[in-house]
């Protein structure tokens, strides 16, 4: 314990913080796991066919038969929210995979080798980074066209710079660490140093940015679907359900409520997890 120094540095703060962060992480994991189970139940045993139209059930309120009620076509909202969660998660997953994979490659190479390529790539990266990701995604969508895969690709590309930035910073730090110098002296190849030595050491930072990535991807996917350029009908998606529900807000507030809550829970879960892992 350091007692002779800095009274304002409470030694306790470290302990307390990690406890608090764990609490965040646990709460976030519980929410995410809950949503996963919710999604899986929808995949295995969806109460109704999410696209089945039943004109007799139009705008039915919440009941034992339809827990969340029915929409303007008499489709079961619960089934659609389950299916929509799956669609959102699918896009988010694809987005994060593209973003992380290329982000790690770009960040690792530029951070480790430096030099002119680093300079050029990072300049490009920085100018892309300065753009709101929604705008980037819209630009790519207008080039690629609307649809699930296009949105995944567009968001994935839009997410690369932020990952690359984080990974690069970690590699810049690691490059001058003793363990890397030792590995070099022992004749390890660059490939080995990058992937076996440095990368595993960046995992906390990486993990927390992946969680933030999920958080942003869910938000972005929901926004895209809300605008009608993500998942295409009749497939359900949370964002699209919200934009349809908006018209019937006075008549059937439950139609908007449940997809909205599902989006909030997903975002809240991932952001709490990110909070728990990260924190300098």
């Amino acid at each position: 314990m350091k007692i002779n120094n800095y009274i304002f540095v409470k030694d306790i703060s470290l302990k307390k913080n990690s406890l608090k962060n764990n609490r965040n992480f646990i709460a976030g994991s519980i929410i995410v796991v809950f949503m996963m189970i919710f999604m899986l139940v929808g995949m295995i045993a969806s109460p109704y066919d999410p696209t089945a139209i039943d004109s007799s059930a139009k705008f039915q309120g919440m009941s034992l038969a339809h827990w969340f009620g029915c929409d303007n076509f008499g489709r079961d909202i619960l089934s659609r929210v389950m299916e929509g969660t799956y669609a959102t998660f699918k896009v988010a997953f694809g987005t994060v995979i593209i973003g992380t994979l290329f982000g790690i490659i770009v960040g690792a190479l530029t951070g480790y080798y430096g030099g002119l390529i680093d300079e050029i790539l990072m300049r490009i990266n920085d100018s892309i980074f300065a753009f709101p990701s929604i705008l980037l995604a819209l630009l790519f969508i207008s080039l690629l066209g609307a649809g699930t895969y296009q949105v995944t690709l567009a968001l994935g590309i839009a997410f690369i710079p932020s990952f690359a930035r984080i990974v690069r910073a970690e590699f810049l730090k690691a490059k001058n660490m003793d363990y890397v110098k030792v590995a070099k002296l022992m004749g390890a190849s660059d490939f080995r140093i990058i992937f076996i030595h440095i990368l595993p050491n960046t995992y906390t930072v990486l993990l927390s940015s992946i969680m933030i990535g999920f958080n942003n991807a869910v938000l972005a996917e929901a926004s895209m679907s809300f605008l009608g350029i993500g998942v295409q009908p009749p497939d359900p998606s949370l964002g699209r359900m919200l934009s349809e529900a908006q018209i019937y807000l006075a008549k059937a507030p439950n139609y908007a409520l449940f997809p909205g809550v599902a989006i909030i829970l997903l975002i809240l879960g991932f952001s709490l997890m990110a909070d728990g892992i990260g924190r300098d």
Partner: protein
Amino acid sequence: MEDKKLILKVTDLNIEFHDHLIPETVVFDFDLDLYEGEIVGLVGESGSGKSMSAMAIAGLLDRKHMNKRGSIDYDGIDLLNCKRDKLRTIQGNDIGIIFQEPLTSLNPVYRIYDQVEEPLRIHTSLTKEERYEKVLKALKDVELDDPELVMKQYPHELSGGMRQRVMIATAMIMEPKILIADEPTTALDVTIQAQIVKVLKKLNKEHGTAIIFISHDLSLVEKLCERVLVMKSGYIVESGLTKDIFNNPKEEYTKKLISAIPRIDFD
């Protein structure tokens, strides 16, 4: 020494931490009589409680997570137990303090002038021009080469030694009765250390400010201090005149500390 006035009397100071599961006492029964204009050394290894005791005198102990007993009597006021408002009239005014890390101890976003001037704004009602004169004099007193330039600079633009001089100027601007120097030279080069010690000695002579000099570097303490208190694990294990202790240490611990001084003959 007997004819000098007693300005600070610390009696039975105990400091206990409560921020861990088990309360931990870091200072036991600390006593100190400080006389006007003297320089007292407080030595010991890190964790011995010397800085904690000094922080208590400067009124800088965190109020939470901590249990304090005893009294620190300055001019009839108990610094340990008095109200914060009362304490503030003494902090920076009658008691100044400088720290180990001059860079982080200075606020990065303010110019040097503002930081040196701050105690004047808090404790006096001098005009702008009078304050400027005082700041200039204080910066000259710590032997900064170009005080007019330094005033306009930011902490990150100065060298370590210059920063520590700025800290001293700030602490001395109200001409306090007591200056607490908490390891002021530890973060500096050896040549700069000697200069800082020289400045402290000079200020002590010119202003009659008593100095509590905290260090683990006994060679500096030997040069600067008339009296020494040796601390170990929260206790004062030995105290007395510097020359007595250095020539004839009684405690085994003190002997060890003294034998650890690298002896280099410069002459």
